[in-house]
């Protein structure tokens, strides 16, 4: 690994600054660590067939959730796609609620009804993981529409992957959001691949942020491997949006270390490419920075790691011990109407 001097030089080149507080760095570190350990445990549980169905993990992209949460307010809304465990944990969904949901248990964040793709949390203004690529783009625009209608200065962060950037829904939403100056922050988490297909193979424009130019939307590319960069970009974008000037578009460049889902060995990319991102792993670089800047001792870092490990371990035990939803739950939450006459013959 590089010397301390080289690392500092690299940090400088990436535009990182050491001017955030100890609390800020520890917040980022702890959230990224919680997401990383949670996702690693989810994969392990999937391997043991405790978790079934789809499972898309966020490993490698944690800096986005961390830098975003420090830059927005709790009252702001978030909607995203199906790679969403990390975003939900950042919003305040607990590892217990999240792991129990992955297990399909009644104590999960949506009572075992949504699974890996569909966490929702009304108290945390988390409007869910959406399983249809790009469908949440107009929905997030509508959530922002409602905030403006109600006269708040809250915004809606509308997140999607690079694959969704080719959906027509994006263009329809960008157009209306700009025409109506809606308080929406569009974020494309560009991890380079729509399932197994690289951006280059399906998009004439590989600098995805430039899509915003067609609508005169302020648009920028951001280093997604650094919580500082994400925080700075979103802070600036949020101020623009809250001023009433309308939407903002950020292309946050990131990488997923694992395949698209648990069933994907990711043979479409090279080990060298994966390694080049892991060399800049946000969890590792943030930990090093905290130690270098003397914001925490090695023992304190160790204590955080142990606490997170216990938290995730506890979430598994909680999920294991929880019951599945009873059969009667099949007929709840389809309609708000309590006496809805289902066809049951």
């Amino acid at each position: 690994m590089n010397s301390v001097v080289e690392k500092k030089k690299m940090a400088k080149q990436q535009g990182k600054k050491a001017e955030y507080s100890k609390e800020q760095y520890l917040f980022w570190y702890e959230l990224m660590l919680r997401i990383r350990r949670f996702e690693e445990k989810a994969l392990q549980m999937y391997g043991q067939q405790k978790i079934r169905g789809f499972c898309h993990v966020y490993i490698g992209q944690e800096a986005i959730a961390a830098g975003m949460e420090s830059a927005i307010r709790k009252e702001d809304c978030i909607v995203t796609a199906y790679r969403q465990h990390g975003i939900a944990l950042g919003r305040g969904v607990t590892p217990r609620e999240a792991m129990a949901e992955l297990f399909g248990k009644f104590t999960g964040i949506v009572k075992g009804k949504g699974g890996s793709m569909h966490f929702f949390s009304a108290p945390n203004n988390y409007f869910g993981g959406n399983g249809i690529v790009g469908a949440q783009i107009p929905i997030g625009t509508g959530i922002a529409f409602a905030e403006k209608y109600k006269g708040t200065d809250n915004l809606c962060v509308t997140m999607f992957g690079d694959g969704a950037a080719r959906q027509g829904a994006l263009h329809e939403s960008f157009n209306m959001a700009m025409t109506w100056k809606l308080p929406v922050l569009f974020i494309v988490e560009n991890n380079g691949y729509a399932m197994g297909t690289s951006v280059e193979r399906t998009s004439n424009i590989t600098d995805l942020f430039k899509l915003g130019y067609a609508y005169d939307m302020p648009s920028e590319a951001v280093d997604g491997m650094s919580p500082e960069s994400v925080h700075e970009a979103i802070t600036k974008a949020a101020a623009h949006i809250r001023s009433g000037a309308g939407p903002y578009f950020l292309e946050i460049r990131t990488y997923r270390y694992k395949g698209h889902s648990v069933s994907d060995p990711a043979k479409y990319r090279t080990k060298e490419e994966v390694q080049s991102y892991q060399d800049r792993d946000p969890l590792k670089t943030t930990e090093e920075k905290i130690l270098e800047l003397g914001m925490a001792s090695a023992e304190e870092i160790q204590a955080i790691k142990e606490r997170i490990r216990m938290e995730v371990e506890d979430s598994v035990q909680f999920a294991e011990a929880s019951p599945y939803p009873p059969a009667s739950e099949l007929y709840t939450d389809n309609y708000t109407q309590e006496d809805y006459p289902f066809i049951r013959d």
Partner: protein
Amino acid sequence: MSRELTLRDALREALIEEMQRDERVFLMGEEVAEYDGAYKVSKGLLQEFGPKRVIDTPIAELGFTGIGVGAAMNGLRPVVEFMTWNFAVLALDQIVNNAAKTLSQSAGQFKCPIVFRGPSGSAGQLAQQHSQTFESWLANVPGLKVISCIDPADAKGLLKSAIRDDDPVCIMESELLYAHKGIVPEGEYLVPIGVAAIRRPGTDVTLVSYNKMILTALEAAEELAKEGISAEVIDLRTIRPLDVRTIVESVKKTNRLVVIDESWPFASVSSEVAYVVQKQAFDYLDAPVTRVNAADTSLPFAPTLVEEYLPNAAKIIRAVKEVMYLHK
């Protein structure tokens, strides 16, 4: 007190009353504001409620429907107008995958109180893409409610109920019948979702229909009366949930059923009605349930082909005589 109103004016009254009653209600769609609505249902609404609540959208059905869904999830009560349901096909992802699923996916944490409305069905020589009937498509989806009614008084009361409903509701109107007149009560009233209406009492055969085909069924019933056949005509008004009880009670009395349905025959509204009747009134039936649907084809342009495609009184009368074993 009551007066005669067209379907379009009755619907407009419902919108005005509900928008006056609840600040969260707004109308969005193509041409709904400055143009007063493609079929003038929203005439004058922009002047009364302003551009914040009466919103002209670009021609982007998927996008503005999704915006409506997001707004509904976040506490508003949108009414999304489709110029016709044919164009809503572009928005089906948002209706089927999102509006209908929001409550279930979120285990009740997020509701989606939204109304999708517009005309459905054939409307003259509009050819293949502008003549389709979507009630059975949408009624197939749990999470949605589906209303299809052209009686002005009932359509008004149903639209008001739909706007107040916390679940997503699809409403099918009719391009041909926006000028159709009916007696509409003065003042505040609601018509409950999920309840059919008996439009004409009878004893020999039950005719079940909805939307503009109800007028064709009534025309046939009038003709049949001249031949001494007493037909009971039931207007479903709501497709989902289906008012099974009213249908079954009628069939228990008449012992014969003909369903008149502008949808294509396969997995149609008539299929569902026939199923529940054979299941719940098998011993009362004196003849197989029969139906008169649109033809199992696309609808072409030429008038002769439109005539051949659609149900009409003659076809209904023929079907009634079949279930009454009166065919020569």
